[in-house]
């Protein structure tokens, strides 16, 4: 098998890695923002329920959450596979293989990351002092203006470092999709190792893809942090 062929297969896996990464971010960030308002809500039962939920999600391994999303619907439905039907649907309508597992992975990733993001957002919003809001109020600003013109920017500055960490972790977490048979980068490499004759080196080589991706993100976030450092508290 040629180097080029192996690269092509790994790249296809890396495409799935990127897909999981991007869709998770695109949905988990707004969902996390909504959740963060929930855990800062004045309605105490809502706040408590959401806090317990977030505690559970952050307290158990993401791998277990993937298994739960993937296997529980079938178990609850007398063993009738739910995701199998989704698989068929995706295959016959769009020609996508393993669509059920992919959807299950996306759901678990989105829920998991939304919870982490919610806690970061809450921290960011609460760290902007009450005094900033009140200064806006006595200047006759509307609630919307206060959020958009006064609070939001300060929150973005505060949460950029922890969000960078979390987003870089997400790049590497996507490998967990492997657990229910998604052929992402690592699984694609593994397939060579378990093939005949076995080719081992792609497993180690696959790390290069992650390194390049994480390197790119690191440069991006450093740039952003620099842009935001024109003022201090």
């Amino acid at each position, binding site marked *: 098998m040629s180097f080029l062929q192996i690269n092509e297969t790994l790249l296809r896996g890396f495409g799935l890695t990127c897909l999981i990464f991007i869709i998770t971010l695109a949905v988990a960030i707004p969902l996390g923002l909504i959740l963060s308002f929930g855990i800062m809500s004045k309605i105490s039962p809502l706040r408590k329920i959401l806090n317990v939920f977030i505690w559970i999600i952050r307290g158990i391994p993401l791998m277990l959450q993937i298994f739960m999303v993937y296997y529980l619907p079938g178990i609850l439905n007398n063993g009738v596979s739910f995701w199998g039907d989704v698989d068929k649907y995706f295959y016959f309508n769009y020609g996508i293989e393993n669509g059920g597992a992919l959807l299950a992975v996306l759901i678990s990733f989105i829920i998991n990351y939304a919870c982490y993001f919610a806690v970061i957002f809450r921290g960011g919003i609460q760290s902007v*002092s009450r*005094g*900033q809001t*009140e*200064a806006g*109020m*006595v*200047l*006759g*600003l*509307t*609630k919307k*203006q206060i959020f958009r*013109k*006064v609070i939001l*920017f*300060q929150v973005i*500055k505060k949460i950029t470092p922890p969000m960078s960490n979390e987003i870089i972790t997400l790049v590497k977490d996507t490998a967990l999709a492997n657990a229910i048979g998604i052929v992402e980068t690592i699984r694609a490499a593994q397939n060579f190792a378990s093939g005949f004759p076995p080719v081992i080196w792609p497993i180690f080589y696959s790390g290069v893809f992650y390194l390049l991706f994480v390197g790119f993100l690191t440069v991006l976030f450093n740039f952003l942090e620099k842009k935001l450092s*024109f*003022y*201090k*508290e």
Partner: protein
Amino acid sequence: MAYLEIKDFRKTFGNNNVLKGISLSVEKGEVLSIIGSSGSGKTTLLRCMNFLETPDTGVMILDGETLFDAEKDKKIKENALREKRLNFGLVFQSFNLFPQYSVMDNITLAPLLQLKERCKKDKTVNFAEGKQKILAEAEQLLEKIGLTEKAAEYPYQLSGGQQQRVAIARALALKPKILCFDEPTSALDPELTGEVLKVIRSLKGEDRTMIIVTHEMGFAKNVSDKVVFMAQGVIEEEGAPKDVFDNPKSEKLKAFLSGIKDKEGE
């Protein structure tokens, strides 16, 4: 009737009875100082006037208009609240400048947002013209507080005294009828209080109506037309600065004043 009339403001937090019936009046162009030990409810009173808190009972009348009546105003709508707030300016102890905006932008943010809203409602309002006027006024304010050359700097680059002067300019930019100060120099190093007090004194020269909560007794005596001494949520004594400072009647005020003298003597 006086320019500002407050009648029977009461406020409780939980079972903490913070304001126990405060009534006071201020004439146009007058400076009222409020003194009293920490916890006596001075900040809460200012916050009630600025609609940051809602008094449980009481009435507030400004320039003949009833701004607040606890009987009727249980829940004021946001837009009405904003308009009522704009009658007052408030300078906070901790400045509360917006750190991400330059000095100039801190001063012009609110006026420019107001202008934008006016343009949306009324197509005949010219934004460019209005903006120019706002910027020119901001320049004048900067000159007044002596920080013209700091216009482009960010709050973190300024000393506390300079930041508080900017906060005063920011409040003035909205042309409030009454400007309130909540211990404007308490967060400052002693050597920086003078520059802030100087700015406030210059405002008195312009016949601005001001309400100043302060621990600077010399300043209060010197700048005020009227002094109110608060203790445990009531006005214990009030009058001309001379009477209040040189001729205190109540035991509480005597104790308060001698306590401050001891501190200053240290």
